[in-house]
């Protein structure tokens, strides 16, 4: 067995109790995954946007998310070498770095964050929700693993609304392709009541998640909805949606956030409780994971809290009212896939960000544009200008990458961020004089 690559966080990093709980949940899940060959559990690899965890659980399959693995590699400073490995194998510099991190990890023995080898998937469940790269990614994995691959096609929300036809189209795919294939792979017969049961649990946790994310409307906000938000969405975007664990976690988190809210406290950062809330921001785009803490520090050191973000909606837009519905099981899974942020058109994204700035009384919009993610980045400048125009609030643009450490220039990002904060300050003072 390979030596463990899990590195403990430095002792001085402060974490909320909920973060510790979340970490334990993730660790337990990875252990379950890596011991699948021993326990005989079968594994389905799938994506966060359009993750059909409840359905996967109906077949006793374990959910493996290559995106999350790439994020873990990024946070653990492993992605750099994986990406180079993938580049040596012929993947170009411009390709999505999640993909390259995953491919590189595979080439280096597919060691997961717990230091053990991740299992080969028994089925690839490709739920396509707006990111074209997903198709190519699973094409590569199919080549590697030669396992059954399901292609669930979610119609793009080009016109900004879900039509009955779209839902029918997706339900048909569930019935004709997804469910039969999963039955065949797992040997478990599909039971719709079991699905209903999971969906009921999902909705319960989703209620709490929405409550937590919307506490960002308070001043000061008790949460950071981007950097802290990454932790908050972990369980529900991953392998825990529809489980009692998720219900417990969100209940626990809600109490924790409520306590801060009651005391009028801001979020907890890795360096301790946040000081005075000077700037309230809405952030668009994924974060950078290789310098996650350093990036976050650039915000909290300046007193900037992210009160709402679009990234915490890539695994579902629950704050817009959607809940998994046990009474309409397959239909609500279809609606879920249709609604995720990556499947939303540019005008829908503009509306959402504009709403957030207004409803969360933010000082402006910050876009973190990802070098290797065309899916997110295309059109972001246009989004920025339009949101600026509609809200009259200043916006700014920083450029980093998901998990490629080569594309995080701390000096460049800091320069832009500080300029932006000072710009907000000048605008807000309204004195007509720069100070």
């Amino acid at each position: 067995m390979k030596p463990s690559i899990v590195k403990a966080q430095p002792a001085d990093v402060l974490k909320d109790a909920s973060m510790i709980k979340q970490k334990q949940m993730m660790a337990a899940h990875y252990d379950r995954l890596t011991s699948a060959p021993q326990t005989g559990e079968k594994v389905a690899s799938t994506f966060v946007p359009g993750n059909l965890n409840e359905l996967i659980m109906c077949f006793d399959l374990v959910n493996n998310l290559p995106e999350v693995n790439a994020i873990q590699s990024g946070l653990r400073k492993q992605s750099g070498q994986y990406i180079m490995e993938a580049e040596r194998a012929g993947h170009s510099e411009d390709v999505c770095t999640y993909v390259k991190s995953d491919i590189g990890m595979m080439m280096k023995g597919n060691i997961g964050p717990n230091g053990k080898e991740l299992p080969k998937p028994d089925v690839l469940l490709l739920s396509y929700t707006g990111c074209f790269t997903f198709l190519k990614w699973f094409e590569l994995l199919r080549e590697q693993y030669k396992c059954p691959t399901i292609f669930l096609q979610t119609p793009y929300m080009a016109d900004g609304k879900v039509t009955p036809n779209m839902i029918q189209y997706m339900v048909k795919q569930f019935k004709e392709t997804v469910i039969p294939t999963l039955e065949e792979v797992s040997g478990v017969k599909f039971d719709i009541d079991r699905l209903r049961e999971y969906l009921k649990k999902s909705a319960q946790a989703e209620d709490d998640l929405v409550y937590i994310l919307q506490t960002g409307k308070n001043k000061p906000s008790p949460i950071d909805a981007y950097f802290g938000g990454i932790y908050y969405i972990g369980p529900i975007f991953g392998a825990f949606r529809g489980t009692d664990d998720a219900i417990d976690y969100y209940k626990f988190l809600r109490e924790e956030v409520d306590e801060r809210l009651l005391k009028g406290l801001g979020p907890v950062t890795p360096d301790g409780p946040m000081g005075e809330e000077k700037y309230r921001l809405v952030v668009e785009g994924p974060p950078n994971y290789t310098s996650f803490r350093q990036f976050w520090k650039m915000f909290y050191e300046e007193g900037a809290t992210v009160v709402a973000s679009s990234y915490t909606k890539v695994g579902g837009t629950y704050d817009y009212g959607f809940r998994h519905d046990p009474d309409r099981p397959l239909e609500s899974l279809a609606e879920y896939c249709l609604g995720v942020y990556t499947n939303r058109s540019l005008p829908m994204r503009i509306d959402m960000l504009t709403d957030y700035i207004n409803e969360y009384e933010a000082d402006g919009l910050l876009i973190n544009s990802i070098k290797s993610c065309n899916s997110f980045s295309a059109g972001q400048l246009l989004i920025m200008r339009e949101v600026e125009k509609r809200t009259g609030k200043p916006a700014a643009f920083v450029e980093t990458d998901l998990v490629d450490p080569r594309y995080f220039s701390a000096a460049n990002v800091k320069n832009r961020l500080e300029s932006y904060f000072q710009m907000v300050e000048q605008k807000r003072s309204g004195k007509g004089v720069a100070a």
Partner: protein
Amino acid sequence: MKTFVGIDLGSTTTKAVMMDENEQILGRGITNSRSNYETACSVATEEAKIDARFTLFRREFGAAGELDEQVEEFLAALERSFRLEQFLEQLADLEETCVRLVRGERFEKIGDGVKAALHEVFRRLREEAPALYAPDADRKSDFFRDIAGSRYLAVAEEVGREAGISYDVLLNIYDKSIIAVENRPPSGKLNEKFKNALQRVSKEDSGAATVLGEKAEHALGIELEETYTVGTGYGRVTLPFSKEHIRSEILCHGLGAHMMYPNTRTVLDIGGQDTKGIQVNADGIVENFQMNDRCAAGTGRYLGYIADEMNMGLHELGPMAMKSKKPARINSTCTVFAGAELRDRLALGESREDILAGLHRAIILRSMSILSRSGGVADQLTFTGGVAKNNAAVRELKKLVFENYGEVQINIDPDSIYTGALGASEFARRAAHGRIEGVDA
């Protein structure tokens, strides 16, 4: 008197601007940025202070703008004399540092000979120093490192040969010492140096110099109090200032450009390692900005690489490009590819002039993209940063702005390199004002 200092710690040079309470610039100072930011800041500030002294002399001599020839001559002589004074002081420091290095096993046998040679080198350097600062002398650079360096190398070779000491030994000692000397903050009192310089000038010339000298001495009595300092600078993770004394470089450039040209709405700054497009409003407040990302393509650094590749001085590139009749078509501004592109084209028989003209155009094309992403070009456009001194770049900018945005006034101040420092000094003035008035600045 109260003064407000703005310091722009750039990747290539560090600039300082000193301002008085009436928003008038007293002095500007520039030095090469070293690995030691503290020293770079204190040298630049001292340079600005020296320049401020000359402004005060002019004020003392009366009617600004109406200075007669005699006064100009006197001030020029005073400046040369002052620079000589400074040079000699640093030279003495360099000598001491060099001599101190002659110790240990390596020098057991040759130590005395090396020391004697060093003393001879520095004696000659001191001897020829006044000529370097003679009225018609042509100095390639004003930085001590450059002047002392080139002369030391020449003289040391001579002396080494005469004394039978290896040139490499002398060179090695110099290399080790110059960094230490450069990184030492300026010592000695400015006023002392000014007084010595004044004495030298009046010795050379009696007549009017005596009267002016007396007035100058009086002006030296005005104390320059550094009331508030604001620092800015890109890429400095740690600036030698506390947080409330730091303003973003983008904001400083926006405000500085606004102060030079109040009708500025767009600022293009091409510096050593970044290119910025900034939109400002009628008050000089930044509305929007864009800058190059992780890649240095199309920044001043790119021209630096080209100059190195062509074995030319950076300032020679523009004039050569201006001679081109048929600019080469170059699309890539990738700094890494610059050398290859250049060699390739030379091999194909294209002229250096045409290639350089094409490269300048490529840089400006990239700036146009950054400008458009920041919101376009609005009348008036102010072009700042080191590259604004390059005529070929300016020519391409004018062309491309006209093609894309029509008639736009383009401002280029001869002191545009100080734009960021100017904005910073105004931020310093406002911050101090706010503090004095009890207003939240």
